[in-house]
């Protein structure tokens, strides 16, 4: 195992930012951390990068427990690199930034120069080798920061929101580089993102985080819901002031009116009339978004609120819904999960 976490808790001023009972990360794979703001993604990446220490619990790296002694920390940090969400470049030319890590490791000048050109070429920034690092755009800075990390040929590359704060073109370049170095150098990659589709497209494994805890639910399809009335064992709820759904009454505590409802995109049934699905919560909306997702299609439906669900590629190809077309879905009771606000 590359990383193994047991009962890891990280608190900031009494607030639990991360609480992971058990987690294993395999070497040589791409992992994505998905979760909303404040879910604990950056905290977990900082722990993986050995830039932060948990308040309690055990973190193991390649089978060895991390003791956080100064000597061990330096050795570990030299095997792992974290690319910040908003990376900062040192004052000076681009080449000096890229060679920083190599220079402090005592690499010879000629070898350094060659490696700098190599990685700048990899990220498509070779023509910027002498440019002033502080005069680059956001996307260019991110690519130079990625080159600076890749120059060290780390065992693990950690990226905090690699697609954030850059345009679509730079996003694609950065993500394709992550995929490429995982394939060619066998570098383990762990990156965080807000976007499920983006994460799943690239990653071998997806880790979902919510309120600092690993979650089995994706962070999409989370709504604020209000109980309108309770009748015959069902509770009628209104989502975001728009969509009405009927939920089993025992899912929601008697005294709760306002709660958080998650709808599992894996549990939604497409075209229920064809699949013989009957009952409550059969609703029709317009297709707003279509994304390919490793053998499946992620469909974004406009129902007054946006609802995502997955469709196997074979099923999608039978009668592919187009953007704007009407689609009916059923939301079975098993797809609901309720929690307090």
């Amino acid at each position, binding site marked *: 195992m590359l990383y193994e976490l047991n009962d890891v808790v990280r608190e900031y001023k009494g607030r639990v930012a991360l609480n992971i009972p058990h987690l294993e990360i395999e070497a040589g794979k791409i992992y994505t951390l998905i979760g909303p703001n404040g879910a604990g993604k950056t905290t977990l990446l900082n722990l993986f*990068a050995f*830039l932060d220490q948990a308040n309690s619990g055990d973190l193991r790296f390649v089978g060895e427990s991390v003791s956080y002694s100064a000597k061990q920390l330096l050795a570990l*940090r030299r095997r*792992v690199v974290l690319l*910040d969400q908003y990376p900062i470049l040192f004052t000076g030319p681009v080449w000096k930034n890229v060679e920083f890590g190599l220079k402090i490791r005592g690499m010879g000048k000629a070898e350094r120069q060659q490696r700098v050109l190599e990685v700048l070429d990899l990220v498509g920034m070779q023509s910027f080798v002498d440019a002033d690092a502080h005069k680059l755009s956001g996307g260019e800075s991110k690519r130079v920061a990625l080159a600076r*990390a890749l120059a060290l040929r780390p065992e693990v590359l950690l990226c905090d929101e690699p697609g954030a704060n850059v345009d679509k073109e730079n996003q694609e370049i950065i993500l394709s580089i992550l995929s490429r170095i995982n394939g060619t150098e066998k570098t383990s990659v762990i990156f965080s993102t807000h976007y499920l589709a983006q994460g799943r497209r690239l990653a071998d494994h997806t880790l979902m985080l919510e309120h600092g805890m690993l979650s089995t639910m994706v962070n999409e399809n989370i709504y604020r819901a209000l109980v309108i009335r309770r009748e015959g064992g069902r509770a009628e709820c209104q989502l975001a002031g728009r969509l009405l759904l009927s939920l089993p009454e025992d899912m929601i505590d008697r005294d709760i009116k306002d709660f958080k409802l998650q709808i599992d995109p894996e549990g939604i049934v497409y075209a229920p009339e064809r699949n013989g699905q009957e009952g409550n919560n059969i609703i029709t909306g317009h297709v707003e978004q279509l994304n390919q997702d490793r053998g499946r299609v992620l469909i974004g439906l406009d129902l007054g609120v946006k609802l995502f669900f997955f469709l196997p590629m074979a099923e999608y190809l039978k009668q592919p819904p187009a953007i704007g077309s009407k689609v009916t879905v059923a939301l079975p009771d098993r797809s609901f999960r309720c929690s307090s606000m």
Partner: protein
Amino acid sequence: MGLLLDSLQSAFLLLISFDPELLVIVGVSLKVSIVSTLIAAVAGVPAGFFIAHSRFIGKRFVLTCLNTLLALPTVVIGLVVYSFISRRGILGPLDLLYTQNAIIIGQVILIVPLITSLTIAAISRIDNRYRKTALTLGATHVQMALVIIREARFGICAAIIAAFGRVIAEVGISMMLGGNARGFTRTMTTAMALEYDKGEFVLAVALGLTLMTIAFAVNMLFHFFQGRTRVDVV
């Protein structure tokens, strides 16, 4: 008005004739000021970095003390150092009183708080991501500190220049600890005070002009570095 114009004219002639006494006084002033600034920088910059970058109990108290020391009058420093280095003081046997070293000791005490405070301000302005980036790229704590000092270098240079400006223009410490001995501990400011007491304005005005020129050059440098810092922050 006539007295001032006559003094200015004579002072100007004294300056362009490279009067030996004037050159010695300027030389002593520059020597003690440069040495004391360098010593204070060696002590103040790392101290400022340490205070800015570490969390410890009583940090706020240390910062308050530093700010208080910025207002310390030179005569108070002169008195305190005098009590240590006078013949009856514990450092009396070292025979430091009325030497250039005595002036340097006093001036170092005067400007260490200034350099430390301004270094703290310069380091605190540096984005914390520099620290994090240096560490994740494999830097040791010393290498990380060098990265941060490099990023804050314009602010730190401005701190050192401000300190130099402070010591070259001070008179209390030089007079009390140096004794204003001709050709030995006589600095520009003490010489000016003496000439004024004697009613001899020519040398005083010439020294004043030299001091103002140096102060002007120092301030030009200060503003140059401050400007660079501001551009960096933006």
